[in-house]
């Protein structure tokens, strides 16, 4: 009928509001990320039904329930694997993956690595709060050395993962860092990440106001420096991006570290998809093809 073919309606913030309000703690950095994602979709005019938001488990992984897109709230650490399947089955969909640092760099580390080298065309937003929140405050893979948590009450003795360097080394084709306290800048990065053809990695400082008393808004605010503020910064230069990724301390860069568009996406490299998304392809195989399969066995 005509409804499906009607002129696309203008996408508004209200359209993208989820069925329930977030249950995050008041002041949680994740609110800022949710708002920035909704703003980015409105600015890009992508309707919710063309988006699948996929998460693992954790505070930030409750994200899909709070936005009116198709959502998948999957297993701890497995969002990227599920998302790869979704994208390969229907590459017309915009795929967003949302989760936390424990979900992505701890239990899901293997999928993170392989999703990057495959250049799966999706945007992966990590709400990095350097702590496990939903399990009430344990050390995470990005917790600083010395940080005291319930699981390391005498201070963390393990070096943290550097997500930006890791992503650059693993071949991610879009690598950026945002800060939940910098809404406009974050929205811009999300838009770029969605529009990028390939794997976009966006690590977002999203402070946990309940369990992380080290890396607070107040701690980040004076330290974050936008890469875009330097007109000479060239995000196509991998070596400089790697150098910048190592900065941590009084100055912590945020913004687009690196981007390249000369690497084919996974779905773009697979000839099976030349005739369109798998989900729209014929179920039956042509009889002359199946006959050739049987003939091989005779």
């Amino acid at each position: 009928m005509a409804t499906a073919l009607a002129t696309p309606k203008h996408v508004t913030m209200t359209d993208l509001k989820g069925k329930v309000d977030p249950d995050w703690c008041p002041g949680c950095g994740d609110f800022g990320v949710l708002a920035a994602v909704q703003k980015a979709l409105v600015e890009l005019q992508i309707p919710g039904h063309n988006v699948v938001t996929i998460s693992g488990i954790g505070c930030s992984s409750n994200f899909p329930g709070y936005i009116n897109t198709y959502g998948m709230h999957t297993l701890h650490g497995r969002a990227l694997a599920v998302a790869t399947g979704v994208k390969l089955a229907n590459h017309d969909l915009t795929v967003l993956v949302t989760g936390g640092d424990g979900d992505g760099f701890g239990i899901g580390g293997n999928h993170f690595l392989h999703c990057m080298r495959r250049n799966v065309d999706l945007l992966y937003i990590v709400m990095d709060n350097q702590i496990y929140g939903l399990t009430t405050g344990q050390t995470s893979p990005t917790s600083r050395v010395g940080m005291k948590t319930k699981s390391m009450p005498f201070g963390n003795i393990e070096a943290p993962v550097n997500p930006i360097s890791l992503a650059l080394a693993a071949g991610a084709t879009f690598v950026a860092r945002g800060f939940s306290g910098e809404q406009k800048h974050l929205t811009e990065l999300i838009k770029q990440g969605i529009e990028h053809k390939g794997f976009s990695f966006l690590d977002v400082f999203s402070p946990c106001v309940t369990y992380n008393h080290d890396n607070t808004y107040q701690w980040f605010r004076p330290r974050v420096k936008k890469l875009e503020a330097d007109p000479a910064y060239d995000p196509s230069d991998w070596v400089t991006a790697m150098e910048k990724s190592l900065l941590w301390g009084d100055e912590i860069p945020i913004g687009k570290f690196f981007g390249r568009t000369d690497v084919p996406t996974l779905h773009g490299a697979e000839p099976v998809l030349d005739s369109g998304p798998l989900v729209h392809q014929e179920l039956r195989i042509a009889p002359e093809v199946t006959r050739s399969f049987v003939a091989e066995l005779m």
Partner: protein
Amino acid sequence: MRQTFAIGIGGAAGQGVATPGDIFAKIFSRRGLHLSAYNAYQSIIRGGHTFLTIRTGPEKVSNMGDHLDLLIPLNQDSMNRHLGLLTARAACIYNSDSICPGESAPGVQLCPIPVSKLADITRNKVAQNTLALGSALNMMGIGFEALESVLTEQFKRKGEAVVSENVAIARSGYEYASGNFKPFAGALPMTENRYAVLSGNTAMAMGGAAAGVKFYCAYPMSPSTGVLHWMAAHGRKAGIMVRQVEDEIGVVNMAIGAAHAGVRSMCATSGGGFALMSEGLGLSAMMETPVVVIDCQRAGPSTGVPTKTEQGDLWQMLGAAFGDYPRVIAAPLDIGDCFKVIPEIFNVADRFQCPGIVLCDLLLSEGRLSVDPKDLDFAPVVDRGELITSATSNSNPDNDGGYKRYKITESGVSPRAVPGLPDHTHTAASDEHDEDGVLISDEFTNPTKRRAMMEKRMRKVVGIKAAIPAPKLEGPGDAEVTLIGWGSTKGVIEEACELLNEQGISANQLQIRWLVPLHGEAILEILKESRHTIIVENNYSGQFARYLRSETSFVPDGHIRKYDGEPFMPHHIVEAVKEQLSGKSNLSVPAHEILV
């Protein structure tokens, strides 16, 4: 008794055991003969000991049988291991330059071939294999042209010179046999039939293609890797996206992602990989996203014996993932059934939006069987269930403001909308959720809702059970003994029953294909009429016996089990049945006499 002819070819891995095996298989199937082949090997690329058995005959051949008619040892080790298996009228063809026969039973014909006199072994490293092929076919009474045409096909890629060299060697083996060796009594007949010869892995992959699988992914693991190989080689022609993934956790989750986006999605692994997939099966069940997982069992636990067969994963399948959820588990009965079961289980999984598990094993996965090409049906019934693929379908009759992905229904099945459709957005969650997909696991927990959702999902079991057929008894109704098996043991139990009937012990068979849900009442109905019941299975603890008891309280009179890595041979079962009927024992563990 069926007329069959069995050949054993033994050698080290890398010595070319497979090639003569393939050539025999081609020649037999093109003569309209059935065949069954099984390769006993180890986890080694070069060396070790490989022993390929091919059994052929004009009627269906379902297992390796009890006897060898011809042994071709390609090295001394194979001669030492297997010559003792031969009985009167059997023959052994070997390279007399390098292999000495040992003691053989009376009536066994030893056929030494002076390989270096008949072929230039400096040029052709597999001359002994080709000469043996030629001699063997001569002794079987098969004309040389059959071998010539297969060799020509086999070597044509390598050019005319290689073809003619190999044909010439084969011919000298053929001619040498006429002057020096005695032909086998009762030459193999020819029929007008033509068969496809395929492994269970190829059959399951092709069955997937027939079922309309569009996404296949896997991590290599013996003995399931053959499914990946077929898919990888044929996926582009068949329109199937095939991916090799970083681990089995990634495999099952990627498969679920693709399935959720609306395509039929499949993966295969073995026990260890399946263990990693376990949590993902729960995800499939909770999100109600159908996915089909094949488990090709190998001897466990842990890495176990990667190249050996077992039916030891049943309880892993029964208990895979925590919590209660509807699942469907089928065990294919033979290699032809490996093809058929895939479209069938996809229909059940799609209709009831739950995970489907195919419980195969190495015996079927890597064994090969002749199958009538008509039985490889690429247009099977496809029932995708209540799948909403267009925003205009009238599948959302609610007036109360929108689509409910997990709508509570009598059948437990809720219409499933694929992402991309306007007006059907929802979240599919691994957490417990309400009808509209909203989580009830966190701040909104509500025992009434949780109970309702649990009951909604579990109600699907009733529908699944009605959708799968109950097992049937094969053979005389009032038999003295009823042999109960599941999955891959069908053929060998069938032959054991035939042998028992010939020996005056009437036997029938109850073979289980659909394991979960189990048609317990129908099974009890059959077994209560049985005079003596024995469960035959390829594992240590009687996994099926324990499952049957847990579902029905049924306790059989006896058990025949084997857990040495090798499959049952018919006589193992026959002898065990006799032992048990005489009251000597109620648990038999036959010893495997072929040392591989």
